[in-house]
């Protein structure tokens, strides 16, 4: 049995106008899998997680979590899920300590026996190096520490399926890595299926068994992180060490034969089939425009794949 199934999910918000946040999304997640939802801001990831966590009703289509229909059997779904939303800053009782907060949430809202709740809390806190924070008041924690409390809260009742909306937000790289590694081991040990949204490509590579890429509410890719990366690794990249060039110059670079796409963040990146061919012509264009910059051929990364998908260069394909 799959842990999560989505079939033709559509979600429309009706305010002054109808906004379609999800458009015919279908996929399955196997039991015990760590599944990542990727996509730019406003792509529909959080809406999808909220539907699966019974916070929203789909406009069309249906979804199941642990075999239960998220709309018709919401109480059963709620018994088997864990949830960590994005708003971790104020999402617990300020004047209670971390220990008191977690004890309350696990016992009162999740019906975990008090003794079990305390044991699990101690264990998880020790594993992620958080034991010395348990006595601190929630309000006295840093943003990253608050995020950790919210993640612990989501798993300490050992749910069958856990939804984490940007779990490593606000975490420093070392803590993020430690938490990922713990979560992966903990999920495997307890048979927990994890469904997370993220923008962190490192998280995707280290944590996720499979990912789905969503843009404008549509599923654009589903497969493993390696397959995702492979979708652009068939291409090569020429990198120019400047964040932007004049629009006319960028347009000239885009029409160099073999260049299929251009992205710009910290540097300009030209996606092409033969980087050596494009490199020569790129240098000519830059030289003609009097631009001096470091130019080279680089290996594509997951972030390149992300950029290509965001820019709409790929169409939906089940790998």
């Amino acid at each position, binding site marked *: 049995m799959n842990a999560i199934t989505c079939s033709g999910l559509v979600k429309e*918000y*009706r*305010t002054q106008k109808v906004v379609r946040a999800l458009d015919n999304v279908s996929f399955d997640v196997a039991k015990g899998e760590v599944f990542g939802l990727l996509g730019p801001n406003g792509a529909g990831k959080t809406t999808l997680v*909220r539907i699966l*966590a*019974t*916070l*929203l*009703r789909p406009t069309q289509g249906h979804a199941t979590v642990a075999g239960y229909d998220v709309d018709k059997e919401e*109480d059963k779904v*709620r*018994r088997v*899920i864990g*949830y*960590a*939303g*994005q*708003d*971790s*800053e*104020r*999402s*617990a009782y300020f004047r209670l300590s971390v220990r008191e907060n977690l004890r309350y*949430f696990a016992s009162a*809202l*999740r*019906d975990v026996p008090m003794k079990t709740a305390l044991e699990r809390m101690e264990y998880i806190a020790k594993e992620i190096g958080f034991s010395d924070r348990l006595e601190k008041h929630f309000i006295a924690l840093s943003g990253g520490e608050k995020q950790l409390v*919210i993640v612990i*809260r989501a798993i300490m009742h050992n749910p069958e399926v856990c939804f984490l909306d940007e779990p490593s937000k606000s975490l420093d790289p070392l803590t993020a890595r430690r938490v990922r590694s713990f979560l992966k081991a903990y999920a495997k040990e307890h048979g927990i299926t994890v469904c997370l949204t993220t923008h962190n490509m490192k998280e995707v590579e280290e944590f996720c068994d499979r990912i789905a890429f969503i843009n404008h509410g549509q599923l654009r890719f589903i497969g493993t992180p390696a397959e995702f990366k492979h979708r652009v690794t068939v291409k090569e990249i020429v990198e120019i060490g400047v964040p932007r060039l004049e629009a006319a110059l960028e347009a000239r670079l885009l029409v160099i034969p073999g260049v299929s796409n251009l992205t710009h963040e910290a540097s300009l990146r030209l996606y092409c089939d033969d980087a050596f061919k494009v490199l020569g012509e790129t240098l000519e264009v830059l030289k003609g425009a009097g631009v001096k910059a470091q130019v080279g051929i680089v290996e594509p990364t997951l972030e390149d794949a992300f950029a290509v998908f965001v820019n709409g260069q790929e169409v939906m394909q089940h790998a």
Partner: protein
Amino acid sequence: MPNAVKLFYMAVWRNLLTMTRYKANFVFEILTSLLFGLGMLLFALAFDASMLARTVGSTNYVAFIILGIAFQSWTGIALWGAAGMFQGELSSGQIDYTFTCPFSRYWYIVSNIAASAVQGTLFAVPMLCVGLWFASSTLTAMGIILGLTAATLSVVALAQLGTIFASLVLKYRQVTAIFSFFSFAFQMLTGMFVPVQLLPAGLQAVGWALPLTFGMDLLRFYVMKTTPIMSIEYEWLALLAQLIGFGIAAKLAVAYIQRAAKEQGLHYI
């Protein structure tokens, strides 16, 4: 450097904008100010001891008012406890987590109100004891038991009303003026400080619709031997009917708000 006059003008503009943005709240701000005027007028009348004797059959205004104030701490919690909790959860984002947990929303609200009422009782006990001490000439053990039973029943009925108000918070978000309006209405129309018998007939009818009125009237009847608003049997029946009626309305309100929340999301309803 910004001009102080402009800062003042812009601050007034900002406040007006905020005040008028939430229409229901704005309307209740106006209504509350009108009600305060009327309330003060009635309050002045109640200090006339002979009028108190004519209406409730007792001149013990000290016990009358202290029991009313002691009652107020419970009613505040019963009515606004859950609404305040939801407002906090809504602004902190905690409500998302709460709503993914496996329990009845209705019972979540009611149990939180009950928890707050326990807390409120601790603070109301000294005041209640003082009120009972001032009524010692008419006090009996059975009177205390029956009076407190009536008070408890009316607080439970009020908690149902509080559940409806908690749903209002989810729907309208900015409801402070609505709270103020009802707080004052409850104080003035239910006999907390001014005998209900003093009110004009129309306002008396509104008072009878609120569970607080009969709870407090029964408490005073059993403790102070005051003249009840209507026959004791009718008051008990009215309290029970209000408990059932408001209970059903509260369940419907929670079911409605849950449906609305699932359509548009908790933060957008």
